[in-house]
Structure formats: C-alpha cells, structure tokens
C-alpha cells in the first residue's frame, strides 16, 4: 500500500546539518482563500485611507492628498506582501489566518530579495486572469510553487508543522505487533486510520481495513479489529 511519492504534501529537505526535515507545502485552494482575505484587507485599508485623506484634504490640499493616496496605493499594491513576509511570522494577515507562511525551499526563513522577486512576479502569475498561470504552474510542480516562487526559490508551507495529538481512543482491542516491518508511510497510514476511524461509518471502516487483508490475513470485522490492534501497537510506540 505504500505508493510512489506522487501526491505528498510532505516535502523532504536535507539540511546542512545532515538531517532531513519535512515541510508541509500548502496547495492552491488554501492559498486562494488566504489571498482573498488579503484582498479584502487591502481594499478596506485603501478605502479607510481614502476617507482619511478626504477629510484632511481641506487642510493639506486636494492635490497633496491625491498624491499621498497614490504613493500609498503604489507601495501597497507592489509591496503589501513583502512588508508582511519580512515580519516575524513571514506571513500576510491572510496567510496567518489560514495558518500558512512563506519559506525558502531550504526551510530557512524567506529573505528580502526572495520576497521582492516572488511578489514582483505576481503580475505574471495573475495573467491572463485570476492567477491562471500561477495555478497551472502550481499544479505542475512538486511543491505547489507558482512562477514567482520558482524564481525566488520559495514555498508556501503550513506554519506550525502539526504535532499529532495522541488522543486516547477507546478501542476494545489488544495491541498487536505487525508480522512485517512496516515502512513509515505504512505506519502513518495505520495511525491515521485509527485517528480518523471514529468519523466514518462501520461499512467504510471495514471497506478500508479490507484493503490491507494481505497484512492482517482477515476480512470483515475481524480484519477491522486486527487493523486497530496494529494501529494501537504503533501508537503505543511500537513496543507493546
């Protein structure tokens, strides 16, 4: 059941310290939502600014007010993301809401030159409309990188690498060691099965546990309980 690493959002990166870390890259859907939130914030900010300048224009002159507005619009439209990506969280407010951040492909924090490049090239990603190029590029790269990300060597990742919570799941089975050595992907599959099983109907659970009949040697409810036993064994740290 271990498949080729085709569609995995966990991207391995080898650090200079000789260790491999895994980054969880974020896909186009969640990034679009983050972008929409940013767009709304952007619009509201400009609108508020416009109101303020409208009221102060009597004092500083209409032309000056228009000029200030144009300067702010220029800075915001080209450097909104850069300003926030240089912040401590490396994320725009929208990305922060969605739990995302921008990082180097190497896992290091994004740097100013990278941030400028990826955001200047946003206009190309937007072409011909609605981030079409960006989306196509995302779908054809392993790490969901749009064109700007490719040139800047950056990725958008989930900010907090999720630490799996070991909820005490009430399963009436005894932990049981698997008869084979399982790969990490297989172990992860078993553990996630155990974690997510309460959300599924019994028929669905059985259907899924039947898939690993070669491992459990059983089908139906017996197979399900063996699957749970194996999962439980792994969850307890693999030592009974």
């Amino acid at each position, binding site marked *: 059941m271990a498949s080729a690493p085709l569609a995995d959002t966990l991207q391995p990166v080898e*650090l200079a*310290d*000789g*260790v*491999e*870390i*895994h*980054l969880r890259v974020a896909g186009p859907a969640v990034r679009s939502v983050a972008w929409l939130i940013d767009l709304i914030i952007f619009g509201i900010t400009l609108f508020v600014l416009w109101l303020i300048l409208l009221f102060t224009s009597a004092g*500083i*002159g*209409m*032309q*000056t007010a*228009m*000029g*200030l*507005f*144009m*300067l702010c*619009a*220029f800075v915001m439209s*080209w450097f909104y993301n850069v300003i926030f990506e240089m912040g*401590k969280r490396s994320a725009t407010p929208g990305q922060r809401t969605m739990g995302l951040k921008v*990082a180097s492909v190497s*896992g*290091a*924090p994004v*740097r*100013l*030159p990278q941030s*400028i*490049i990826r955001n*200047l*090239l*946003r*206009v*190309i990603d937007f072409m011909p409309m609605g981030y079409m190029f960006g989306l196509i590029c995302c779908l054809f790269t392993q790490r969901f990188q749009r*064109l700007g990300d*490719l*040139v*800047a*060597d950056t990725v958008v990742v989930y900010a*907090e*690498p*999720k*630490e*799996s919570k*070991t909820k005490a799941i009430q399963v009436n089975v005894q932990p049981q060691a698997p008869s084979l*050595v*399982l*790969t*990490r992907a297989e*172990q*992860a599959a078993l*553990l996630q099965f155990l974690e997510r099983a309460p959300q599924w109907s019994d028929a669905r659970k059985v259907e899924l546990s039947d898939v690993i009949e070669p491992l459990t040697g059983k089908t139906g409810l017996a197979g399900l309980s063996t699957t749970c036993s194996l999962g439980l064994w*792994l*969850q307890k*740290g*693999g*030592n009974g």
Partner: protein
Amino acid sequence: MTPAHFETENAPRWERLQTLLDEVEAGKPSADVEELPLLFRQACHDLSVAQHRMYGPRLVEKLNALAITGYRVLERRISGGWERLYFLVFREFPRAVRAERGLFWFCMAQFWLPFLFLAIWTPFDPEWAMSILGPEGMIQMEMMYGRGTSPMDYMREEFGSNFGMFAFYIWNNVGIDLRTFAGGLLGGVGSIIIMLFNGAHIGAATGYIHHACNPETFYSFVAGHSAPELMGVVISGMAGMRLGLALVKPGPYDRKTALVLGGRRALVLITGAALMTAFAAVIEGFWSANPFPPPIKYTVGAVMWTLTLGYLFLSGKERHAA
C-alpha cells in the same frame, strides 16, 4: 532501546531547546542562548535516529517540528540596512549593468531605435505618431506643450500639485519598470514588447511636438529628468531580459536553477532601475516644471546625463579592470 525509552531519555534536552527557541522567537534571548547550536545539532541527530529506526510518526513529527523551528531561528539573518543599500547603489548595481554589456546594448536598441525612428520620421509623416498617440494623447500634448505655450509659463501653481505629480510619476513610471521586469518571465517577450512600445510612444510624442507644438517648452521640461528616467526604462528591460534568457537559454544549468540564478542577478538590476526612476520622479515633480529659462534647464539636463552615464559606467569601478 525502545522508542519510549529514547523519548524519556532525551525529552529534557528537547524541552530545553524548545524553551530557548521560544525565547529567541519572542525576542528575549537569555544568556543560555549559546547552547542553542549544540542543542539544535543534537535534536537533528535525534531526528535522524528516530527516522532511521522508525520510531513512529508522532515522535518523528515532533522532532521534525523542532528541527524546522531551530533551523529557522539559527538561519535568521539580519539585513545590512543602510550600509547594504549604499553598497548596492554605488557598487553592486553599476557593476551589474556593466557586467551585462550585451544585454545593455540590446535593450538600448530596443528602446532607442523606435524612439529615434518615430521622433525623426514624424515631422515628415505624422500619421503613425498620430495613431500611436490617439486623439486624447494629441490633445494632451497640445495642452502641455502647444504653440501658445512658452517654457516660462508656470506649469503648476502650488506645492500640492508638484507633490501630486511626483506621486503620479512614482506610481506610473516605477510601476512600468516593475512590469517590464516581470514581463521578462514570459521568455523575455513581455519586456521586449513594453520596451518597444515605450520607445515608440515617447518617440511619437517627441515627433508630434516637433510637428505641432512648441519643442522648446517640451525640451526644457524633460531635460532635467530624462536621463535617469529613460535609462531606468532600459535597465529594467535588462532585468527582464536576464530573467527571460535564463528561461530560454539556461546554459549549463537546468531551467529551474537557471531561473533562480537569473532572478538573483535581475533583482539587482531592477532595484537599481526602480531607484533611478524614482529619483527621476523627484526631479520631474519638483524641478522640471519650474519657470527657469531654457538655458538653465538644458544645462541641468546635460549635467544629469553626464552624471547618469558616469554613474553607470564608472561607479564602483572594478579595481582590476583594464
């Protein structure tokens, strides 16, 4: 050693690392921060061990998160600030321009050939220029530089309008520079189109003014800011072409690596070009519309051209250059 044993034995170290990392991230590092690199390397080692011995996803994920945070904290760099900016403006950028001699002349040709052609040809046959400018463009030209105007006219009445125009030039001209750069990602085609069109448009305007307006008003207005502004256009085209060439002709690298490397070189060029154009916007906003007699304007213009070209060709000159 069982996973549980491994975890209980090392957990204090991980917790210590986590505490130190939290402190640094919060901006309040304690004196113990010196232990950080050591603890980080140990945690990396633990992660490798846990991965290799398959100690289960929970433990591996936990250590993975620790390693990512540690790496992020240790890799955080402090930018050079003003010193870095000075270095970029007076050394790195002009050097980068000189290093791309071929691209420089290519982009000069892309911009200046259509410009010269239309500027010279239009007085004989204004139809091309007219169709490029359109009726609104022609009306605008005649309003600003028409036969009835003279260089001594006040073009703007107050400070406010000067500032307003300055802001407009930043918004418009620097925006065009940035787009010219970005257009390079389309294999250079975007940059070329913008440069050609820019050259043609400005050339058409110049030619049309010779045909129908008062050239003296025009030249005394543009003299001061033309040098940094037009060279900014050319160099932003170079930045775009650098990016486009990385895509079209990656050389010894694969395309993705070539793009990353090309992007780094292009960034220096576009930053400099944008700064030049912003500088031009300052002159255009606050100097060019002042009612000084044309000889003064032309002198300033000549000085600006000398300074601009001198800056590009001489600033931060490589020591070993022949």
